[in-house]
């Protein structure tokens, strides 16, 4: 989608359109390097000064068969001169490198949108692989040519010609065609090429020591750009001005990178070594990969034999006095549940990062979802209160990782930090902080045998963190119920009641240590949209648009799910209606209704994708116009809520 198309002037017989934002999607075979093209376009636009939001989308299989729909890999960028919070709904320009990519993505293109196809690949074989009927070529189908501005460019051939004397093998030349396509798009959106040329020379030239390959890629890029410039195929060229974002130094981060940096930062703020114990799992593995490169920060990563060993090692590390953290995704969280309960009764600091994916079971490993909330809150035997917080954007993973560590240490409790595949893999510009802007995390380790009691309580109801190596504080902890105070094993009835209450109160009390919420929009009104996690950007955008249309809508985005902000109940009462949009079947909704007895309704979607702004706008309108009816929840199905 392009929004706010404004001045249109003509330069050298070509129209030049100034637009506020545009959504571009690169789509091709897993082998076609679409992720690289996408990130390069993102970097260039960010460096250029646009606000950007991205959505990578790759197949589950390592490499699905070339040419098949299952093997299609896509990357979407929304870039703008205003600030944006979502990768965008409808696509303004789609680059389809083969028939399968065309088939997989064409329906997401807005009517009148630009579709640049690599014509060379639309042959019998590829059309069959894409599952099109014999003799049919969608490019010749009026159904499409009427709806879209389809531009057929024989990218493969043009690229080959351009690199004919590059001295590279045919295979390696083919590998450059993503740069040729990128060149076209750079021309189309009037982007500078230096970021990418520098990257190519650095990566292939210096790092991989393949100057020929570097040169060829640069050449392909420039040829693509020149092609755009010279050919008559593109009547219009678009220009997106710099965004008016807060001045300062920026970089792009994915949620997983941000989480890794947040953990390291927290460990430094607490003066502890970070011990990150995990077992690889999609989409959480990148946190391990990032942290594994940070040994010089005193970070120790431990790739355990499974998730149970991972969390247990983290618990052991915390018991021994360092910062024990474990990370995983849904199925792994299941396996960690028994040990998480051990940390809860042992009252040790522990951070568990859960990067959610589509469930249940193995489900949809590479797709995003928010369906582990109830598991995080309740997925353990007995009454086992645990702190649950959630990040709301890729860069927010940095802040919430620090927050998770802070709470775990100051309140001697496990903390579950919920992220998701969309946040973990999605990237956004991040205003680079400076290390000294963060408050230290104060750690207290008792040393006085005279006054020490293993299950004593401080003002937070936290017990003392006495660590092995401290003379005279030798004590034993474990999974059996503890005697209040001493922490010895106790089977006493009343003691169990007291300890159960204390564990609950300790977590509830953390509400004193987290910010109260203030609705975005107005303090009260007709509708409050209550969200959590990765849906933040979409909800915010939709609410802003609704308000721009004068609707009485505000939103609250929960970063703290247990305990919840003290004033939430009171805020909820200030609104006539409450809508809870979630990428699950209504998990926060159940809890909010149960806790506050408000008739919250749900917009629920489990389609492996974030909400579209449009879907939220529809929901808001239905709620406001009472067309919503008695439904406790509605679901968007091809542009309809049912």
């Amino acid at each position: 989608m392009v929004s706010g198309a404004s001045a249109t002037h003509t330069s050298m017989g070509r129209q030049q359109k100034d637009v506020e934002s545009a959504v571009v999607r690169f789509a091709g075979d897993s082998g076609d390097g679409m992720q690289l093209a996408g990130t390069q376009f993102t970097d260039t636009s960010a460096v250029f000064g646009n606000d950007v939001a991205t959505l990578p989308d790759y197949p589950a299989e390592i490499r699905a068969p070339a040419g098949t729909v299952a093997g299609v890999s896509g990357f979407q960028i929304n870039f703008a001169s205003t600030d944006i919070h979502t990768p965008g709904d409808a696509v303004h320009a789609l680059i389809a490198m083969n028939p399968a990519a065309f088939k997989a993505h064409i329906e997401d293109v807005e009517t009148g949108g630009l579709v640049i196809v690599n014509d060379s690949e639309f042959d019998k074989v590829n059309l069959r692989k894409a599952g099109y009927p014999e003799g049919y070529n969608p490019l010749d189908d009026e159904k499409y040519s009427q709806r879209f501005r389809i531009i057929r460019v024989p990218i493969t051939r043009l690229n080959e010609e351009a690199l004919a004397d590059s001295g590279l093998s045919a295979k390696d030349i083919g590998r450059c065609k993503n740069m040729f396509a990128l060149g076209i798009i750079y021309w189309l959106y009037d982007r500078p090429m230096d970021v990418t040329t520098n990257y190519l020379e650095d990566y292939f030239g210096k790092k991989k020591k393949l100057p020929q390959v570097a040169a060829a890629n640069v050449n392909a890029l420039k040829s693509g750009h020149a092609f755009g410039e010279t050919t008559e195929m593109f009547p219009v060229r678009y220009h997106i001005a710099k965004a008016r974002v807060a001045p300062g130094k920026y970089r792009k981060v994915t949620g997983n990178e941000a989480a890794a940096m947040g953990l390291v930062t927290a460990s430094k703020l607490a003066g502890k070594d970070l011990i990150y114990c995990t077992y690889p799992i999609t989409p959480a593995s990148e946190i391990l990969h990032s942290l594994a490169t940070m040994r010089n920060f005193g970070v120790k990563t431990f790739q355990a034999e499974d998730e149970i060993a991972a969390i247990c090692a983290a618990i052991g590390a915390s018991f021994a006095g360092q910062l024990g953290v474990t990370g995983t995704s849904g199925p792994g969280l299941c396996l960690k549940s028994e040990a998480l309960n051990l940390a809860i009764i042992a009252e040790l600091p522990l951070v568990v990062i859960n990067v959610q994916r589509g469930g249940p079971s193995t489900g949809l490993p590479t797709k995003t979802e928010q369906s582990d909330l109830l598991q995080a809150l309740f997925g353990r035997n007995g009454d086992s209160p645990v702190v649950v917080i959630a990040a709301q954007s890729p860069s927010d993973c940095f802040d919430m990782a620090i927050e998770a560590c802070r709470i775990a240490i100051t309140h001697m409790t496990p903390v579950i930090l919920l992220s998701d595949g969309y946040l973990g893999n999605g990237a956004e510009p991040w205003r680079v902080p400076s290390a000294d802007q963060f408050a230290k995390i104060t750690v207290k380790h008792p040393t006085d045998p005279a006054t020490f009691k293993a299950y004593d309580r401080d003002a937070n109801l936290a017990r003392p963190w006495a660590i092995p190596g401290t003379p005279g504080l030798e004590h034993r902890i474990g999974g059996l119920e503890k005697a209040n105070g001493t922490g010895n094993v106790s089977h006493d009835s009343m003691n169990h009641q007291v300890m159960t209450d204390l564990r609950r109160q300790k977590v509830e009390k953390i509400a004193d240590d987290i910010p109260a919420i203030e609705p975005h929009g107005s303090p009260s009104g007709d509708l409050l949209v209550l969200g959590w996690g990765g849906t933040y950007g979409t909800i915010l955008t939709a609410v802003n648009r609704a308000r721009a249309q004068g609707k009485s809508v505000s939103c609250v985005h929960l970063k703290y799910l247990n305990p919840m902000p003290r004033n939430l109940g009171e805020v909820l009462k200030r609104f006539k209606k409450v809508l809870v949009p979630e990428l699950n079947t209504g998990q926060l909704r159940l809890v909010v209704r149960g806790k506050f007895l408000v008739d919250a309704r749900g917009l629920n979607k489990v389609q492996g994708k974030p909400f579209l702004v449009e879907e939220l706008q529809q929901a808001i309108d239905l709620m406001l116009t009472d067309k919503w009816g008695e439904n406790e929840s509605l679901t968007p199905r091809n542009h309809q809520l049912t």
Partner: protein
Amino acid sequence: MPTDTNLPVLTAKDFASDQDVRWCPGCGDYAILNQVRKIMASTKASRENTVFVSGIGCSSRFPYYMNTYGFHSIHGRAPAIASGIKIANPDLNVWMVTGDGDALSIGGNHLIHVLRRNFNLKILLFNNRIYGLTKGQYSPTSEAGKKTKSSPMGAIELPVTPLSIALASEASFVARAIDVDRNLGAVLDRAAAHKGSAFVEIYQDCNVFNHAAFEYATDRNQKEEHVLYLEHGKPLIFGKNRDKGIMLRNHKPEVVTVGDTGVKADDLVFHDETDENLAFLLSRMSHPKFPEPMGVFYRVEDQCYEDMLTKQVQDAIKQRGQGDLDTLFNAGETYEVKG
């Protein structure tokens, strides 16, 4: 293991916690507890730097009775907890106590991996061939055909041999002893001295649910015939009159009589603690066909996981300097947005 010579020397009693010991009367665990407390004293372990970690089971109650740091964790997971402790603080003197169910049933996988990683960690497996705490179901070391509450018609699994598993798991120290046997102390002493994962199986009598499971090896009238004490570099000889030995006939072990009537001592197998294949062969010798070897089967010096990990940290700092957050934040493609 860290010791501080300025401290007053501690006695076994100093390692007794204030909790009263809660095992059944006649349980083999008592004897082991006493030996371990003695070893703590004799090896000059310091209470504050020692941690006992366990899983769940009667045996796993052990840490409560030691006046050191202790973690009575969850069933089968002690190896992972202990790994985390060693990673976080390599200087600690960590001992793990587990049972045949805890270590070989639910915890088998963690045992394999903690051993191959070779943490500097002492592992004591109390093998009573039964699930004690849950009142008497058969365990992975129970004899085939054993009748228990959960196997009234007899267990139909082949038992596993803990030492074979340990050897296949690349353990750097593998030994066996018996709760009431004189050489338990010596074996524990060797284990304490070993730098790396020391795996010690201890035959333990569950007086209530599997009484006398090891009578053949503890009853003074027969034990000498059923137990073979290993000594590095010495021939494999056993028997009350030291007249029986182990010989290899086309690399298969055989019990032979030594002395003038039989073969010479020199024809016997000589124990070599550094030979993993011999160790495996010895681990396969079991009652009644063979005498069961006691003592140190295998040992090898190797680097410890926690030390190598610490070294990577040091090397990284050498190569890239102490990690600096600002450098980290500013890494990658950054750009200025002017006001």
